[in-house]
């Protein structure tokens, strides 16, 4: 009987079974950022412990930093203290750190793959739930909390219980204007926001196989929104090609040896799954969330649901929606393109294709926040920044920005935001009464232009921008 990638990686990284029955799992890569680590380092100091593997630990800053003005010290004293603490901790414990003055800085889940730090077959941990993103490369990547960050710093291990595996086979050709984001939102709508608890999601099928690495990252990023802490795609030639020439990827003959090993950790053809689900991609339309969790969504041509239960009534009330109203035409105040879900170069290209030659509606504040300095530079080389600026978008520095309310980029009052991010929770974007509509970057671009939720399929006839090899 064959094994899944999850089983193979789990077995390879098992140090021992702890007396409680949990598995002690070796962590191949530990990524750290400013928000979830200061207390962990304090405890290490208190107990007099070193960092076990500073050579397998990398730090950057993303959550609290301003994206408009990056000069130090920050106006926000707490943010300044928090970044200073990370700088000090990385220096004191010998951990490589990519700060604001470094060309390698960016959202932790964007730079890990970009630098080739993320690799197939690895276990990866980071104090951030969207660590699942890295599973796009066939790694097994866990979001963890601060006490587990302390565990990994001190021992390069975490204690975990094994996961079941649900294979989600996505098949068929996506329509123009329907993207990876729509696929993952449709999966969450179907399986629910807690459907993945206890499971790793293996994303498979011809639609996934045709996807670029950027698109696979969008899918795996949002596994956690479906309750699955881990999501992954089996590594294939698309994966291997991605690593050629990346700074931390193996080079020369070592690369060939790596590919052989990477291939070997993919799920076997006769692997047995705990559950199997099939999703038809060709039937999907662009998806927009109407509620306060990522499972509360509809196709752009559909209506929000009737208020049939307390949760729906509460969500409709918070969002200011009438039961049964069409989602298209809903006025938006803010448009946000960015985040670890959709802040990569192909996302910006696709959004730029929609906005080129058009202009943001007068009442909309629109911003584009590249996921990393590297994404920003690459976009500027292609002239995407000029396209966005000419259309009335702000062009910002790399960071988490308006995905979460931890930095100066926040909604005000009960503004409605068309957002390419991952969470539409109450208050998520920094205003306790702010309202978030999750959608693809192209749909955000369309909403910014129209000033309201609109079906991007009517706008995608524009030619693809240079280098925009989308795969799907």
């Amino acid at each position, binding site marked *: 009987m064959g094994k899944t990638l999850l089983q193979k990686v789990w077995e390879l990284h098992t140090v021992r079974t702890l007396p*409680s029955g949990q598995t002690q799992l070796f962590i191949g890569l530990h990524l750290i950022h400013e928000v979830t680590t200061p207390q962990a380092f304090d405890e290490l100091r208190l107990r007099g412990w070193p960092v076990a593997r500073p050579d397998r630990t990398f730090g950057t800053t993303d959550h609290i930093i301003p994206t408009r003005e990056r000069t130090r010290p920050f106006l926000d004293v707490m943010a300044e203290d928090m970044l200073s603490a990370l700088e000090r901790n990385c220096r004191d414990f010998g951990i490589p750190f990519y700060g604001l003055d470094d060309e390698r800085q960016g959202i932790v889940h964007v730079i890990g793959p970009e630098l080739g730090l993320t690799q197939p077959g690895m276990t990866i941990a980071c104090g951030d739930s969207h660590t699942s993103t890295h599973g796009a490369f066939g790694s097994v990547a866990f979001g963890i909390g601060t006490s587990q960050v302390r565990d990994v710093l001190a021992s390069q291990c975490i204690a975990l219980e094994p996961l079941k595996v649900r294979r989600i086979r996505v098949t068929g050709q996506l329509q123009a204007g329907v993207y990876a984001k729509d696929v993952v939102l449709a999966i969450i709508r179907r399986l629910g926001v807690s459907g993945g*608890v206890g499971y790793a999601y293996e994303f498979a099928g011809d639609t996934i196989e045709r996807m670029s690495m950027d698109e696979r990252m969008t899918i795996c990023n949002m596994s956690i929104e479906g309750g699955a802490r881990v999501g992954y795609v089996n590594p294939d030639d698309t994966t291997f090609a991605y690593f050629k020439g990346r700074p931390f990827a193996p080079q020369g003959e070592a690369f060939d040896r790596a590919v052989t090993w990477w291939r070997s950790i993919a799920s076997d053809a006769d692997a047995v799954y705990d559950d199997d689900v099939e999703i038809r991609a060709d039937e999907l339309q662009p998806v927009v969330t109407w509620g306060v969790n990522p499972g509360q969504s509809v196709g752009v041509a559909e209506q929000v649901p009737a208020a049939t239960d307390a949760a729906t009534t509460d969500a409709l009330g918070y969002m200011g929606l009438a039961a049964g109203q069409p989602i298209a035409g809903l006025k938006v105040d803010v448009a946000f393109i960015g985040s670890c879900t959709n802040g990569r170069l192909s996302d910006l290209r696709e959004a730029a294709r929609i906005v080129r030659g058009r202009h943001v509606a007068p009442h909309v504040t629109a911003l584009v926040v590249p996921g990393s300095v590297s994404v920003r530079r690459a976009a500027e080389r292609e002239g995407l920044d000029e396209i966005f600026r000419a259309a009335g978008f702000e062009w910002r520095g790399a960071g988490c920005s308006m995905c979460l309310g931890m930095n100066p980029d926040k909604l005000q009052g009960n503004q409605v935001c068309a957002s390419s991010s991952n969470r539409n929770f109450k208050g998520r974007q920094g205003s306790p009464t702010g309202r978030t509509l999750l959608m693809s970057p192209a749909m955000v671009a369309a909403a910014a232009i129209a000033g309201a939720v609109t079906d991007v399929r009517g706008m995608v006839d524009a030619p693809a921008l240079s280098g925009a090899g989308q795969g799907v």
Partner: protein
Amino acid sequence: MDALRITEITGRALALPGDDIDTDRILPARFLRAITFEGMEAHVFVDDRAAATRAGHVHPFDEPVNQGASVLLVNRNFGCGSSREHAPQGLRRWGIRAIVGESYSEIFFGNSMMLGLACVTATHADLERLMAALAAHPGAAATVDLKAGTCSLAGLTVPVTMPGPARDALMTGAWDTTGLLKERYEDVNAAAARLPYVAGFR
């Protein structure tokens, strides 16, 4: 480890009904800019509480009878979303020692375990009964007995479960894992040596 053993939690119960209560609601992000967990209890559900007040309601965490409660009753997928440990830190510092719910996000469950905050699971029907019993006896004490696998409240006793390893870790006081993970570092090195990527495939 004896002092860390957790087998039974008794205290006043507090009900917070509703599915999918995420960690952004438990602890809004703006309070994560502090570099310590000290004082996190002041921010628990702060935006939900303000919204309840605006609507003319009293949030369960503001009810006078619930002050000092230590057993929290919740529904499905509690603690979903962000991995912020600030959420269970805030709840624990507020006074919560055990949570009885239908299900939890895995990251929230793991974070709570690291703090010795027991998250046990009961069926939807049993949680309805527990919440109804509490509504009939506001401020009633609940006992979560990990050994017996029960939660008792106002004369009602329902079965509760927890994954075996997590339950054992609490009952033997082995829930603070850092020491355990460090104690046989030669095994960690041996595991690393088996992985070709650790040596860069050389």
